[in-house]
Every structure is written in C-alpha cells, then in structure tokens.
C-alpha cells in the first residue's frame, strides 16, 4: 500500500488533509494567473451582498458556530472544519490580501467551500448574531466558479444544465421515450395507469430530477403509481425545463441557475397547471 501522503496548507499549518485528485481542481488552477485571480476576487467583493458585509463587520470570532457543523463534529473537533474557520481561511484571507492570492490558494479555497461545507446553514442557527455563514461560503464558491475551479463532476452537470436545462445530458427525445416505455411497463401491473405528458390544464406539473429518467426510472414508476392511486390530475412537461435539479445553484453559476428556474415556471405557465411539484 502506498504511503499516506498529506497536504499541508502553506498559509494555515493546521489545515492538513489527504491529497485528493480532481481534474476540476488540478487542471484548472494551472491556467490561472495572479492578475486574473485578483481581478475576479475584487469584482465579486465589489458587488458583495450586504448580508455578507454585515456578517464580516459583526462576527466577533467567538467560534460558537463550531458545534453546529457536522464536518467539525465528525473530525474530532478539528478547528479547521469549524464554520468560522472556513471563512477565515477563504474570504477573510482574500479580503486581507486585497485579492492578491496564488492559484494554489484558490485550489485550497475551492476544496474548502466545495468539499468541506454543505451550505446547510445550521451554523446560522448556532451563531448568536444569526450571521449567514453559508452565504459567505457561497460568495467564495462564486469566486471559484468564475475562475473555473470547480469539482469536475459538478461542473460537467452545470454544463449539461446550461446546454439542455437538465442535469445529465438527456435529449428531449430520450426523455419522452423514457416516459413512454415506463408507462408501458407500469401498466403491466397497474391497468390503465397513465404517465401524462403535456396535459393541458392539469392540476399538477411534476418536475423530476434528471437522475430519475437517467438512472433510477423506478422512481418515476412509483411516483406515477402514487399519483394515479391518489387520483391526482398530473402531468410532466415534454419541453426542456422539465428537470427540477439545479446543480448551478450549488456552484453559484447564477446565470444558469436562473435559466433553469425560469424554464420550470414557463413550462408550468404554458400547461396552465395550478401547482408545481418537485422531487426532493
């Protein structure tokens, strides 16, 4: 077995991790220059949300948010996993150095904000000031996204969203085809069950996650059985914008994020449905 290597941060000696290979980090940071980083960071910081500004000017560095974090708790209370520590190692440092940070530093930031924080906002419930810590993490995610330093699998899905409005490169033909054969198979057991596509004026438009037609089609079967048995007047949209997954949201690709949400609402409006039901 190979000797266990360790990554020690240049800036923060306590930040020690096992090496992780991800082309989304390793290859992308090679293309970065310090000028580009500085420009990007400063442009994001200039348009920084007031909620982030208020948090930066209020945080008294008490670390009472630590116990909220499952990363912190599950790593034997390693201080580098504390929510405030994640801000300290990313956003505070960027501000302190006026955006003059190295590509390696951006790689470290990306690792922290994408792989060591779920942005669950539990820390805000433990913070005496109710500061929006996850939103600060999001700000750093936005910087990393604009620099292209994003875990590869999630960036690929974001590209899929950008091109097809669904998460997993599913063509419209594939999507309709999947719904049709699923209807056929489900009807073997549940007679007369329908998987209605584009039913005008239905009560509910159901928007699955892209993974459902792609990988776990049995979810669609079960949903249709539940809807059918409950007697709900439902439908799905055939046009792009049928997928409620939004990976763009997680990496703060706000432009694609917005297009996905708009696609869903436009479909719902066109089908004149009363309610939009999403898979969670």
């Amino acid at each position, binding site marked *: 077995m190979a000797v266990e290597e360790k990554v020690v941060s240049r800036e923060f000696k306590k930040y020690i991790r096992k090496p992780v290979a991800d082309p989304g980090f390793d290859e992308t940071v090679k293309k970065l220059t310090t000028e580009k980083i500085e420009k990007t960071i400063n442009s994001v910081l200039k348009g920084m949300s007031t909620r982030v500004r208020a948090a930066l000017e209020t945080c008294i560095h008490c670390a009472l948010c630590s116990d909220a974090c499952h990363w912190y708790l599950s790593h034997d209370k390693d201080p580098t996993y504390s929510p405030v520590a994640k801000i300290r190692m990313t956003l505070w440092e960027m501000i302190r150095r006026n955006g003059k940070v190295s590509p390696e530093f951006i790689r470290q930031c990306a690792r922290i904000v994408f792989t060591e924080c779920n942005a669950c906002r539990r820390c805000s419930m*433990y913070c005496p000031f*109710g500061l929006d810590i996850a939103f600060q993490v999001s700000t750093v995610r936005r910087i990393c996204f604009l620099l292209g330093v994003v875990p590869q699998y999630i960036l690929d899905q974001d590209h899929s969203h950008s091109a097809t409005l669904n998460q997993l490169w599913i063509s419209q033909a594939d999507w309709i085809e999947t719904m049709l054969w699923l209807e056929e198979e489900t009807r073997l057991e549940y007679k007369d069950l329908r998987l209605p596509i584009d039913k005008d004026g239905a009560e509910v438009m159901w928007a699955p996650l892209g993974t459902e037609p792609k990988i776990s089609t049995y979810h669609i079967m079960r949903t249709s059985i539940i809807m059918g048995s409950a007697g709900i007047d439902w439908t799905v949209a055939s046009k792009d914008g049928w997928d409620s997954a939004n990976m763009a949201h997680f990496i703060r690709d706000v432009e694609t994020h917005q297009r996905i949400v708009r696609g869903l609402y436009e479909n719902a409006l066109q089908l004149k449905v009363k309610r939009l039901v999403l898979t969670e």
Partner: protein
Amino acid sequence: MYDFIKDPSLYNLVRGPLVWVAFLIFFGGSIYKIKTLIQLAKNEKVVFPYMSIKYTLRSLLHWLIPFASRNWKRRPMMTIITFTFHIGLVFTPIFLLSHNILWYESWGISWWTLSEGLADFMAIIVILSCAFFFLRRILTPEVKFVTFTSDYVLLAIAFLPFFTGFLAYHHLLLPYKPMVILHMLSGETMLIAIPFTRLGHMFYFFLTRAYMGSDHGFRHSIDW
C-alpha cells in the same frame, strides 16, 4: 469645556472637549453605520420583502434571554459569563453614581443610579469576564484558529475602562488623578471605537438577527 479654556491641562482636555468628541462620534457614527447598512440592505432582493416584526422579536427574545436558545443551553458557562459581561459592560457606566454626578454638573441631567457596592461588583465581573474571554482565545483550539491581533485589541478596549475605573475608585497602582485620566481616555476610546470596529455588533446584533429570524420564520423553522 470652560475649564479647558481657562486651564488647558491634560485632565481638563480628557474631561471636557474629548468627552464631547467621543459622544458625538459615538452617536453620529452609530447612526451613520446603521443607516448605511439598512440602505444597502434595501438593494437586496431577499432582505426587506421577507422582514417580519413577529419573527424578528421572536428571534431576538430567544437570544437575549439566557438559556432560551439551544446554543446557550449547550454552553452554560459561556452563557452566564457572556450575559453578565454584557449587562455589566452596558449598564454599569450608564447607571454609575459618579458618572451621573458628572453629567448632572455638566448638562444638568441624571437618573437612577446603582449603589457603589453593586457597581463595584459589576466592574469586577466585567474584568473577570475579560480574563475568561482572553483565556478562551488562547486555550480553545477553534477560537485560537480564528483569533487575530484585532480581537485582542477589541478585548483590551472593553477591558481598560473598567480596569482603570476600578483601580481609580480603590486608589490602587497609580494616584487618583493620572488613573482617572487613563480611565477617561480609555472610555472615550471605546465610545469612538464602537461604530467603526466589530464592537458595532452592539447595534448590528439587532439587524442581523432581524434578518435571520425573519428568514427562518418565513420557512416555518426556528433560529435558536
């Protein structure tokens, strides 16, 4: 003020003009900072439309009452110390007898005052709490990791007025007059520092809680 013009000594400076300067900067600066933050928040799409008085008060109440929130319950020692510290920090200077005498002499106003013994006790609490916060910064790993020099400076700004006031009252260490000069200087430093440093959490607390309380209320969840 007139004393300083008649006799421009250091004592008269810190007792006269500097008090004015400190109070003006404190009130002016605080109002300015609060107004700017509210103004900036109006540009945000998701702050004001979701603001709710009910959820704001609900949130504030749970965090202003000791042991009312989950995190206060989980850390009883921190809760007791931080609450007594903040009560002492805010109310001792306002209701101190000698301060009241001073502004009665200068501006003709005064109000209810604390007994000298109680005020002394509260000052001691503040001083000991500062020692606790200092030790916490040094000894607790997660706090140490996010501690900057500025954190020690802020702690010193809060500590010195009480420490020097306590020493002056008991005539310890230095003669009364130089100690009182130090006391007034440190007090004025604190007033000036509040709007422009993270000590501004004194006001921002209410604003950030209002946002988070309303946000959680809107989602039918609680933030304590």
